[in-house]
């Protein structure tokens, strides 16, 4: 059942019937039970679901931090399931930009240094590295904060540094896991505006959230429940999700 109407570019992520099992003591937990999903370039997609739905597992899988137990996963037409650790690291470095709920900046390093980090692991030489990092930081509105350390920045500014870090290697997708979870609603909106701008400039954004008003920014929403895709539809359809209307109206 696909309600997707706006296909914007070539397929970046192609997942077919993937499963993921975890062994917890004696029990086997089936975190994903056969998920099939295609994500195209320049999509803005939200993955939603309650906790325990397999949302985090899917995100780790998409972010190449984990490999599926079974099923097919192709990233830019390359099979991820067959990649070794180094290849996974290279994909994470060049193709995926992570944005975390808790920002996950290195606390003792400046904004510039934090944003430079992916470039360091990519082996970019220092001069170009600094130029590029400064450029991206300026783009997210932190041109005057490049020598500040995280504890000298506000929450919103920290998340901007994290977004700059995600962007700096020109990745195929930006994978944002509850990007506004630790921010007040006004700052959260600013971050969502920034993501919107990045989307309009041609970036592919995957938003993982359980907040419906955050998911409402996406152009497509995938609902996950008990390790399966329950619904995959374009835009935000309030009539399918009546409780949200109440929540957003307050």
């Amino acid at each position, binding site marked *: 059942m696909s309600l997707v109407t706006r296909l914007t570019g070539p397929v970046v992520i192609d997942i077919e019937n993937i499963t993921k099992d975890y062994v917890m003591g004696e029990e086997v937990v089936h975190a994903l039970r056969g998920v099939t999903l295609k994500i195209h370039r320049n999509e803005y997609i939200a993955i939603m679901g309650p906790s325990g739905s397999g949302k985090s597992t899917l995100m780790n899988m998409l972010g190449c*931090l984990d490999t599926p137990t079974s099923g097919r996963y192709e990233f830019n037409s390359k099979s991820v399931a067959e990649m070794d*650790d180094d290849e996974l*690291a290279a994909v*994470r470095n060049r193709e995926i930009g992570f944005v975390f709920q808790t920002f996950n900046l290195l606390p003792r390093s400046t904004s510039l240094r934090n944003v430079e980090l992916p470039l360091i692991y990519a082996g970019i030489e220092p001069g170009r590295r600094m130029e590029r990092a400064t450029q991206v930081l300026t783009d997210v509105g932190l041109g005057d904060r490049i020598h500040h350390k995280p504890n000298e920045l506000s929450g919103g500014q920290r998340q901007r540094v994290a977004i700059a870090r995600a962007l700096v290697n020109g990745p195929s997708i930006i994978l944002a896991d509850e990007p506004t979870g630790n921010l007040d609603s006004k700052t959260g909106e600013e971050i969502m505006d920034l993501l919107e701008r990045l989307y309009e400039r041609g970036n592919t954004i995957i938003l993982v959230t359980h907040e419906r008003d955050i998911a409402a920014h996406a152009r497509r929403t995938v609902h996950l429940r008990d390790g399966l895709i329950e619904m995959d539809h374009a835009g935000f359809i309030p009539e399918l999700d009546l409780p949200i209307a109440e929540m957003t109206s307050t």
Partner: protein
Amino acid sequence: MLFGEIIKMAWSSLGTNKLRSVLTMLGITIGVFSVISVMTAIGALQYSIENGISFLGSNIFQFAKYPANVSATGDAQEKFRNRHDITYKQALHYYRLMEGEAREIALKCFGYEVKAQAVYNGVKTTPSLEIVGTNRSFLTANAYTLGYGRNLTDEDVDLSRRVIVVGKMIEKRLFPHETPIGKIIRVSGHVYTIVGVLAEKGTAFGQSQDDLVIMPITRFFEDYGEAKRTVNIATQAFTTDTYNRTFDRGIGAMRIARGLRPDQPNDFEIYSNDSLKSAFVSVAGYVRVGAFVISLIALVAAGIGIMNIMLVSVTERTKEIGVRKSIGARSRDILRQFLTEAVFISEAGGVLGIFFGIIVGDLLAAWLKVDLIFPYGWAIAGLLVCSAIGIGFGLYPAYRAANLDPIEALRYE
């Protein structure tokens, strides 16, 4: 990943825990310091012994009751103590047997137990003069030269005259403005006339060689007793060519003087410059091995300290490791980063230890009045050992860091 970046990362993360890093480093510093300082001092000593200092004059061998290296313990020491003293009578017997075979034969008896102090006109020397009862050959045998006045003569010995030849220190202390020759001084309650002054010899191993008093051996026995004394006999061959022959004859004569049967082993020690040098070298060897083993233990302990700190550091920085992995660090990048930190601590500690070790070792050498050295070999070995320790003890923590599951690591709080 660039090597420079790894160094920079290591430096900055060590910098954030300065006290901890320095304390960990200190362990290595102490270990390296102990080995380098001892090796420097011993090396300097050995160098100067092998290239200059002579314990005895040239072409000389010596017989004595005790060996030069009296560090022996237990049974060995018992063996030496139970030997009969070399009596003056035996020494004279030897002297007669060897007359004409040798250029000089010095009979020497040291009054070690006598706390000798010289007094002249109310001025005193320190109560640590060395008193030697001997004959005219002492100067040759112990590589002294006469400054002025006269040496002891055979007649002095025959008549057990109350005459002495004194070291330079005594002259300086008691006779700053007049000649000591012919003056009568009191040494340990006995009265002597000074007939000669020795030329200055300086210090050896931190001990002055110029505060001694030599007197006829017969006078020495009369004043300080003959019982329980052993006489050392130094014999000088005529030339280097005849040394070996004289040496063999000397041993034969000594055996006769001691009344040994052919089947009995020598009950005396034989010294030569070579044997004294090799005695020193063997002692130095033990000290080296000891220093090395102790340092190695200290270094292993320090290495465990490094391992401990690195494990703590890995746990503390689990989240950081997760972040680094999520943005593209490979396992080996993480491994290198942590390994570099461990090696960094270790090397920095090592460099510091080498630096202070050489300074202290050479200060020791300077105090012993021997040439200073820079122990290149030990310094390089020290650095290599430090690298090995950094890598050896840093490998396991680094391996643990590198193999953290990025998902778990990111979730770690």
